[in-house]
């Protein structure tokens, strides 16, 4: 049974912001059927920062698309609190014909916000992501990092409770990524958003997450979960983060090898 409740009042504190029960997604038909996600059970709590860590092709993006409502599960239950979640992709996906301001304004226009309220909120958000003064720029006039910040501002403008991020910094260089990690952490702490963040980078997961969910590949299953209680704000080169990143890397390798072995057996 597929159940989708987008608008769910969150009166009980124990209700998670995102709840996945027995969630599966298969691609293709009959003989060529490939199970991308296999019976995923996951709760993301209100205000929590969860990283989905997995190798390429493990179905982590599929999972994110399901939560985003861009795809339908084959079976299982999926609940997202507070309506349509905001989504950020690896590509900023800013509208190339629109200015930064118009881009950030878009989700608010879709919600029918008055122009005055929009203008105030745009100023606030651009300040938050350090893009004040770039309101009239078009995406092609911005650097890669600035484009992702504009995309973050646009996602925040949606005022959703849940923010989904699909390797949003994957295309940036390491230094810039560090800086955007700092900013994302700061924004997340300020806004109290619930974040579900997909990455294949163990360091990034260790740097950002309250909890890391490790996915195995083909079919995507939850292999292991790691609670992370390293103090914030974190540094990517701190001993604790490095240590956890090593641990995650080792586990990720094991999971990948296990998959490779089973594929070798099948062949």
């Amino acid at each position: 049974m597929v159940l989708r409740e987008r608008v769910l009042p969150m009166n009980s504190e124990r209700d998670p912001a995102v709840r996945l029960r027995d969630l599966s997604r298969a691609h293709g038909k009959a003989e060529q059927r490939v199970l991308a996600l296999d019976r995923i059970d996951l709760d993301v709590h209100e205000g929590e920062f969860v990283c989905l860590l997995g190798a390429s092709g493990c179905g982590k993006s599929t999972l994110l698309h399901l939560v985003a409502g861009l795809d339908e599960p084959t079976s299982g239950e999926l609940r997202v609190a507070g309506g349509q979640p905001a989504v950020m992709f690896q590509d900023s996906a800013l509208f190339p014909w629109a200015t930064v301001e118009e881009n950030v304004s878009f989700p608010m226009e879709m919600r029918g916000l008055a122009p005055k309220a929009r203008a105030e909120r745009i100023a606030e958000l651009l300040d938050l992501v350090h893009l004040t003064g770039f309101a009239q720029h078009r995406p092609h006039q911005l650097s890669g990092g600035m484009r992702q910040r504009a995309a973050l501002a646009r996602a925040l403008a949606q005022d959703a409770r849940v923010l989904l991020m699909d390797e949003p910094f994957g295309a940036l260089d390491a230094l810039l990524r560090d800086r955007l990690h700092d900013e994302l952490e700061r924004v997340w702490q300020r806004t109290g958003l619930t974040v579900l963040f997909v990455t294949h980078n163990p360091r990034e997961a260790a740097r950002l997450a309250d909890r890391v969910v490790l996915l195995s590949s083909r079919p995507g299953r939850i292999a292991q979960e790691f609670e992370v209680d390293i103090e914030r704000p974190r540094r990517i080169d701190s001993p604790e983060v490095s240590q956890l990143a090593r641990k995650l890397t080792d586990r990720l390798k094991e999971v990948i090898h296990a998959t490779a072995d089973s594929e070798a057996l099948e062949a």
Partner: protein
Amino acid sequence: MRLQTPKLSKPEARVAAPRAFDAGDAGQAQRASRLAYLSPLVALAVAIALWQAVVWSGWKPEWVLPGPWPVAKRLWTELSTGEVLAAAKITLGRALAGFAISLVAGTLVGITMARFGWLRAALGGLIAGLQTMPSVVWFPLAILFFQLGEAAILFVIVLGAAPSIAVGLVSAVDHVPPLLLRVGRTMGARGFTLFRRVVFPAALPGYVAGLKQGWAFSWRSLMAGELMVFLADRPSIGARLHFARELSDPEGLLAWMIVVLSIGIVVDLVVFGRLERRLRERRGLAEETGS
């Protein structure tokens, strides 16, 4: 949820100078644009020289193929007596009316086809066929329907241009990056709002390319039409061409052909060229050097 405003200014913000303003590129761009203006003139000079060479070779007697100079003199006469202006008014009036109808019809059909897959499956082949059909083929029917009159000409223009505009729009919509649709949907744009606010702007460059082609088709249809349907009281460009042939007036014929060609070039360059360039610049796609 309230947001507070932290007061940190990140140095990354300073690297935002648009690339076009880079000093290194400026000289190159200037050279390129000079070349862009100069090379068509050179091509024109070569074409005229070739024409003159053919005339001098004696391939055709001069009363059949006059040289560039007598034709230029004739063109000047037609221009200075206001003949060209008068004829262009009639012809361009028809062209604009026909193109305007095609624009509306083609766009509506294109939107509907892009929106409804079954309609596209049903009409796609037919419209692509219409697009390849020489518009002259429609004239006998048009004359049967509307007699020799303006309506017959408009009918044929619209049949020539509207399919191109519709096909251009449909294919432009096909090429909209799926990521933009996804992001539009997650921000709450649905149905016609999604189309109007995301799909259409994203498809705009392709749509304009379709309009440009539609204009070329309507201009061709119109010329064919004016050669077949000429009204005594309306000395259009096509009618002038027709009479120049009837009266064995090759200088007039070539002069009026140059008028047709010039109008085509001017509209293409000034109207569509400018529109396309502005669209590309706004989206950071303008890297054309004209060479």
